[in-house]
């Protein structure tokens, strides 16, 4: 549980690095840094994705779209990736 809270806090403060693939996804889907930070504030679902070894948060973008962000710590760096639920 503590990991989820730590990630949510880092997410909402913008303390994360974006993997390049996620950056491309964001451009394709018009998602912005503020949207990711808002997920840290508004998430209504969180789960550990065993296959991807990531902590996933489902929440609202600033335009109220539902988005999922996948988070992993590498050392002290929180790395964000994104994927569609069905992938």
């Amino acid at each position, binding site marked *: 549980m503590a990991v989820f809270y730590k990630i949510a806090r880092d997410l909402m403060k913008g303390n994360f*690095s974006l993997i*390049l693939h996620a950056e491309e996804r964001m451009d394709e889907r*018009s998602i*912005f840094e503020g949207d990711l930070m808002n997920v840290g504030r508004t998430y209504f679902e969180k789960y550990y994705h065993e296959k991807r070894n990531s902590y996933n948060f489902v929440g609202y973008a*600033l335009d109220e779209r539902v988005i999922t962000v996948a988070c992993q710590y*590498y050392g002290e760096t929180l790395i964000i990736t994104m994927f569609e639920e069905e992938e």
Partner: protein
Amino acid sequence: MKTTTIKNFAGLEYLVIKNVPIRHTAAGDVLAVKRGFLEELAAKYILENKLPLRGKEVKLLRSARHLSMVEFGKQLGVTHNAVMNWEHEGSRRLLPVNELAVRLFFLSEFNLDFPKSFEDVKCYADLPKKKVILKVAA
């Protein structure tokens, strides 16, 4: 430091950002700058160069200031549905009166030079026909 080029930044077909620093991590290459920094760079370019404002540009400007549709609408005196409609029609240019209001609002938000006359803020330009290349300073 390694760098990369981002094409179609923020979904804007004309916008390319070069010299974006990246660093290698165990998870793969990551941006070595805040994405918000790039968003602000693009937003300021759009405002300073008086590019036409379509839904896509409005979304970038709003998001770069971390404003929700409701917050932005309140500031501008329109409903969040109005903002949603603008952004939903991403490739359609705003009505001139709306474009003026949005432009003035964000010039103020980004602390950019405020126009001295009405003529200065009006925008008759078309979208750039060539790619706009922004560079991140080394």
